[in-house]
């Protein structure tokens, strides 16, 4: 196997990984705080992609600008879903929460189908095809920008969670479930903000990714599953783990596409997941066992 080709694949995967990281960080936050499995995560991402697509198509906004608006829109969606639905089933049996989120996922996916049609789309960006060569290896400018933005957003989230009062409360809630409830924090507000931020992360990820890869309404569930893979591989409850896990999975998939058949690249992620579940269930960077 040509080492340059492999290096190129690894680099592409790595730069693409920022998007994966962002989406996994959002999921990890939601699960960590509420213990709710957001099965609609990938569909929320697809909506982020479509919003970016519409903003580019109608207003000519570049996705590398409009992702802020997409994140804001998804924040609102997250707040609505949390306030209206998730909030009411926090104490319901596990399978009922799953059913609820499946319902939300179905509605979101098919709403996208009805509104935008089944065709695959791709958001136009001014940087879509730009590349910079470094010797034998090239850097895809769009991926580079995506990576930088995803990294910046993750850092911003990190600062929010570790520096602001509300962020600290959210972390406390994530650390010991009902602990924050005991110390009398406004649990409702924490949950709402956490879900909103989680959705905003995945919305931004969707917007950024829409410039790199084609998407369609049907793509949502696969993204949900990938997000969960990453969170578990990185380590449940660890935001850093989710971030690094995103990079690892993206690189692994990218290498898998070169070494195996491209259509088998997803297999790499799943095999990685099974291995992690079996031999290191706390994840690569997580301290806690499940």
């Amino acid at each position: 196997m040509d080492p340059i080709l492999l290096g190129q694949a690894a680099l592409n995967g790595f730069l693409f990984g920022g998007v994966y990281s962002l989406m996994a960080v959002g999921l990890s936050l939601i699960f960590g705080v509420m213990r709710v499995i957001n099965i609609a995560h990938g569909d929320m991402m697809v909506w982020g992609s479509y919003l970016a697509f519409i903003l580019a198509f109608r207003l000519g906004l570049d996705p590398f600008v409009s992702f802020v608006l997409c994140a804001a829109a998804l924040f609102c969606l997250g707040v609505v879903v949390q306030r209206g639905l998730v909030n009411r089933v926090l104490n319901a049996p596990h399978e009922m929460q799953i059913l609820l989120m499946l319902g939300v996922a179905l509605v979101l996916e098919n709403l996208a189908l009805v509104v935008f049609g089944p065709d695959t789309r791709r958001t136009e960006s001014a940087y879509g095809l730009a590349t910079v060569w470094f010797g034998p290896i090239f850097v895809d400018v769009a991926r580079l920008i995506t990576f930088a933005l995803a990294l910046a957003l993750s850092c911003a989230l990190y600062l929010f969670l570790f520096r602001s009062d509300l962020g600290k409360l959210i972390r406390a809630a994530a650390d010991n479930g009902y602990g924050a409830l005991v110390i009398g924090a406004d649990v409702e507000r924490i949950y709402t903000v956490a879900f909103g931020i989680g959705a905003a992360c995945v919305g931004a990820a969707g917007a950024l990714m829409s410039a790199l890869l084609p998407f369609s309404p049907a793509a949502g569930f696969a993204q949900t599953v990938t997000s969960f893979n990453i969170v578990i591989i990185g380590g449940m409850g660890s935001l850093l783990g989710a971030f690094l896990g995103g990079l690892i999975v993206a690189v692994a998939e990218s290498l898998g596409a070169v070494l195996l058949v491209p259509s088998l690249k997803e297999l790499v992620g799943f095999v990685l997941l099974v291995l992690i579940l079996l031999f290191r269930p706390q994840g690569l960077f997580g301290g806690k066992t499940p």
Partner: protein
Amino acid sequence: MRWAALGALAVLLVLPNFLGSYLLTVFIFIFFYAYLGQAWNLLGGYGGQISLGHAAFVGIGGYTSTYLAMTYKLSPWIGMFVGGAAAACLGAVIGYLGFRFGLRGFYFILLTVAFAEICRLVVSHVEALGGALGLFITFSGDPWQFQFSDNRYYYYIALGLMLAAMGIVALVERSRMGAYLAAIREDEDASEALGVNAFGTKLAAIVLSAFLTGVGGTFYANYLFSLQPNTAFGIPLSVEIILRPIVGGSGTLMGPILGSFILSPLAEVSRAYFAKGGLSGVHLIVYGSLLIAVVLFFPRGAYPYLRGLVRGRRGGA
């Protein structure tokens, strides 16, 4: 109660004589999904081990018997059980890995999804199994090859499957295994302290559940005359399998059946109604909203709710 059940059975037995071909297919789907739901219910409802990858067992069962029928002319009536056994083996592997390492709740769900997806991706790349296009069964009309020109046969087979699964699960429910599964679902550690071999019991449950689901795979393949990896192993089928027992009431014998009588016609009607207007997707929005409504209004499922109504009325009288 017994008379009501016998009456219902009698109605279901003579019903095909009065149904048009469209309604007949609706009933076939009701029975078949009730069957798959009941198989899932054993593990997910009674045992509380939620699998979101049960399509893997449908796929393994269907592919096994269909491959054997195409290559070795083995009758699907026999292949059905070979397929069930193959699915049971996969179930044993998933169960052994998952339960041995103590994966609980969310982690187990992901393990099942991962295995279903691995199966889907691998089968899509196996030429002998038709690759991504899948296998197509040519119609011969030979009953020994599980083929009938009259849909009423499929009706009775699906009904038989549903009743058989119900009988098996009823037996389990009343046995030691049923009591142990409920105890594990409630509190695994506490059950172990009382002598429950949680690992062995869960393993037995997933093997039996996978076997039944795998047997269903043969019906699936031969009723649809084809198998594609994306549908037979896909997440959407897994979702369909778990919806009915949960909506009807998971961990109850009637749950999957009631759930299927509620959801299958609704899915069918909304599909027929909205698809006519060229609005593909709308029926799934309706379907999704319905699931949300069920969770909000019947948080324990429809059957426990109905049972509560009946009990309340009796108590009040």
